[in-house]
């Protein structure tokens, strides 16, 4: 007898439909799975055998062949345990005659017949939904994230026996209520009001987030670089449903969303500086997403930037420009989105005290140059805002009044982003940082007085053409934050202050 069960497979964040076919024939008892299964899929034989038995059914003593079609796509992970078990039971006639369930299913089985949550549920549901499927039997632990997709019916499955009864028509599984997206009040570890002093840097962070500009914080140890970076998520605009869906899709692949439902906060990722380039941009046998994709629509924080390996930093250049990354490996090729705000922090010199009044710096000029040289010019050019954070003395710390709360800053950021959305309605972008040369020309053209100021900056700071364009973009964002329609001279002038590394290169 033959049976067919619908399942789904993933390739990056896209997917493909999988048919689980089982044939039971007379002959020597045996159990074979074909259709490019990987080791985890092959191991499912043992889980399926035990789960069927412990769910109260009989594992047929016959020649069983399971085929995962299409046969030319590699199948990975334990997601096919549930459809395989169901398919065997259907083929052996234990679920009644002519079983042809309308749902798509996937899930991992325990030996007791229980169903475990899996990685990648949301992207599979979204992909299958786009291919016309509407009913899904998913592990209970994944039901919530899947139920956010509008128009699908989600059947949460906790045991194999439960699903079998549903198929036989004995006990229906009640569908998981559709989840509705609403703005979530978020709570953050660090609020802007907790950061004393550093008003210049806070302003720079606000501008960076408002316009989607990457930002580099330079300061002596204890200046508050890390604290500021950790407070940045609190001024990011609230997530929209679409953004949340896309973030959850990516995180779902790594299994981080098991039992957690949708991701409601913007990601804040802070990989250690020992990270490999595969960890950062993505890789591994199965071309998994890296930190840059996991920080999609959020913040990627690289502390101690010059301590990262050179090749790792260089690997960031292309995704910073494109907003996506294609990871190619022998076994798989996948494209992941990677639109994040890069927040990087570094000391001004190897000892960290360059420019400090309290602890004089002991580094030779050549050491400082070498230290800064570890960040290549092309990478630096992609960081629109570079800001030095002056050191803060202990006395000042205790005396300073609390600053503005994050909610006030976030309101301005959201207003500025709204202004950008309106401006770029027909240009296919959302943020000032994404402007190309043509758009910069259209939206950032300086008047005569500003032009003169910029010409001086260009000559005195020996700016590259790219750095010059960055100043124009940042000036546009400053005007947006200030709520100004036109970019004024003061906005350009302020933008020039955010090219710190260009400026410090000028000393005798």
């Amino acid at each position, binding site marked *: 007898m033959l049976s067919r069960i619908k399942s789904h497979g993933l390739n990056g964040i896209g997917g493909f439909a999988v048919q689980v076919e089982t044939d039971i024939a007379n002959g020597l008892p045996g159990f074979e799975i074909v259709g490019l299964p990987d080791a985890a899929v092959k191991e499912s034989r043992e889980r399926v055998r035990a789960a069927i038995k412990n769910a109260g059914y009989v594992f047929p003593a016959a020649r069983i062949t399971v085929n995962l079609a299409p046969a030319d796509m590699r199948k990975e992970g334990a997601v096919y345990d549930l459809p395989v078990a169901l398919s065997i039971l259907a083929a052996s006639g234990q679920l009644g005659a002519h079983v042809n369930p309308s749902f798509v299913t996937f899930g991992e089985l325990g030996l007791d017949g229980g169903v475990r949550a899996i990685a990648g549920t949301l992207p599979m549901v979204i992909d299958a939904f786009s291919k016309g499927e509407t009913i899904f039997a998913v592990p209970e632990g994944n039901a919530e994230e899947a139920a956010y997709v509008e128009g699908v019916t989600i059947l949460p499955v906790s045991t194999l026996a439960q699903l079998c009864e549903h198929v036989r028509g004995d006990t229906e599984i009640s569908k998981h209520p559709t989840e509705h997206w609403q703005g979530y009040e978020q709570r953050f570890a660090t609020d802007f009001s907790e950061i004393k*002093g*550093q*008003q*210049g840097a*806070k*302003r720079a962070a606000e501008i960076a987030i408002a316009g989607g500009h990457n930002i580099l914080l330079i300061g*002596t140890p204890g200046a508050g670089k890390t604290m500021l970076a950790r407070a940045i998520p609190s001024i990011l605009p609230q997530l929209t449903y679409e953004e949340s869906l896309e973030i959850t899709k990516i995180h779902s692949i790594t299994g981080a969303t098991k039992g957690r439902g949708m991701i409601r906060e913007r990601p804040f990722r802070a990989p250690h500086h020992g990270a490999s380039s595969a960890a950062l941009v993505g890789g591994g046998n199965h071309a998994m997403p890296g930190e840059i994709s996991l920080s999609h629509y959020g913040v990627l924080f690289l502390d101690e930037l010059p301590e990262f390996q050179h090749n790792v930093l260089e690997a960031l250049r292309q995704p910073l420009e494109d907003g996506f990354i294609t990871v190619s490996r022998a076994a798989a090729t996948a494209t992941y989105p990677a639109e994040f705000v890069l927040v990087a922090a570094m000391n*001004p010199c190897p000892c960290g005290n*360059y*420019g*400090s*009044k309290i602890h*004089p*710096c*002991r580094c*030779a*000029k*050549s050491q400082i*140059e070498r230290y800064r040289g570890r960040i290549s010019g092309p990478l630096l050019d992609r960081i629109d805002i570079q*800001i*030095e*954070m*002056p*050191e*803060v003395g202990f006395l*000042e710390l205790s005396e*300073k009044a609390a600053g503005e709360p994050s909610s006030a800053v976030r309101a301005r950021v959201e207003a500025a982003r709204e202004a950008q959305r309106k401006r770029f309605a027909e240009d296919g972008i959302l943020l000032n940082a994404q402007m190309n040369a043509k758009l910069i020309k259209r939206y950032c053209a300086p008047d005569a007085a500003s032009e003169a*100021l910029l010409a*001086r*900056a260009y000559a*005195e700071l020996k700016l590259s053409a790219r750095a010059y364009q960055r100043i124009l973009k940042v000036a546009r964002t*400053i005007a947006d934050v*200030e709520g100004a329609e036109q970019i004024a*001279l*003061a*906005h350009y*002038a*302020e933008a*020039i*202050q955010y090219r*710190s590394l260009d*400026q*410090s290169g000028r*000393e*005798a």
Partner: protein
Amino acid sequence: MTREITEEIAARLWLNYGTEYNARLFQRIVSRYDSLAETKNAFENGAEWVSALPESIRARLREARQTGVLERLIEQMEKKNICFTFPGDERYPKLLSEISDPPSVLYYIGKIEPDPELSIAMIGSRHPSKYGVEVAKRFGYELACAGALVVSGLAEGIDACAARGALDAKHAICPTLAVLGCGVDVVYPASNRILYEEIIERGAVVSEFLPGARVERYHFPIRNRVMSGLAHGTLVVEAAERSGTSITAGYAHDQGRDVFAVPGRIGDEMSAGPNGMIARGEAKPVFSPEEILCEFSCLHVPAETRPPANIVLLSSLGEEQRAICRLLKNGEMSFDELCDSLALPIGSMNANLTELQFSGIIQGLPGRRYCIDTDRVKLKDI
């Protein structure tokens, strides 16, 4: 400038090759004989002092005796335009020959003024403050303008600033001399390469170390006695309490030369050196380059003066910029301090700072600090 290699000079180069920078050993060996050629003969005949020498020096002396070694050295020197001079030679700096242990051979690139009317060695920290940088440049410049020779060590910091200041005196003929702690053909630190080239162009780099010799830590104290020895007086600009600077000042005292110091702000780490010397009576405080010139009664009217600083009337500035300038007149301030004192919106603070920077009135410093660019402008409070 090729020099004829007489037997006597060849013997000197041989003995210098063996004893290297050990000028006293050189003197001790030579003092036994009337000429260097005789010394060499005695070595070859195995005189009794030879066995008393350390093995390493004996080995070097034997090595240098082999044909080809010195010839190669001389060939190298000609290729790199390295000249040499020695005590008794007409090109040997007169002041240097007066010290108790003058280098037995002084290698140099460029041109040496053997008997300058006034020669001042400027020494100080490798990590000066902005104040130290300004003072070193100003003293270097004005001393060179008055015709003095500025001696420095080509290190980063005060040394480099002093040399830079001296080179800025465009009309001075031989404004500066740099004494290296390595071979004269080795540029250390590499960041001073441009300065090195310019010094060769207008003055000279000198060293008692063999051409090609690498930098060693212990070279610097040995080099320092040559710096003070080349100068009538040594000027300390900024230095920490204990540093190489105090070694050089000590040499200057031993050599019977004057030591001057520019007082610093109390409390700053880099003021401890000069202020301490002044307090202990080891150095005479000086407040302007003229005081040094007066000391040696060779006050020339400077042939040129710095381009006059632009006078900026505070009233010509906008209100916010005026307020910023008023604050900065009292010394440098960080961005945060400015914000706290002025209660301006951060945006306009940034904009004003940029405009002031580009109009040349203020200057950005590391650590997001700002100060009035006193080199270029003078503020008038009208």
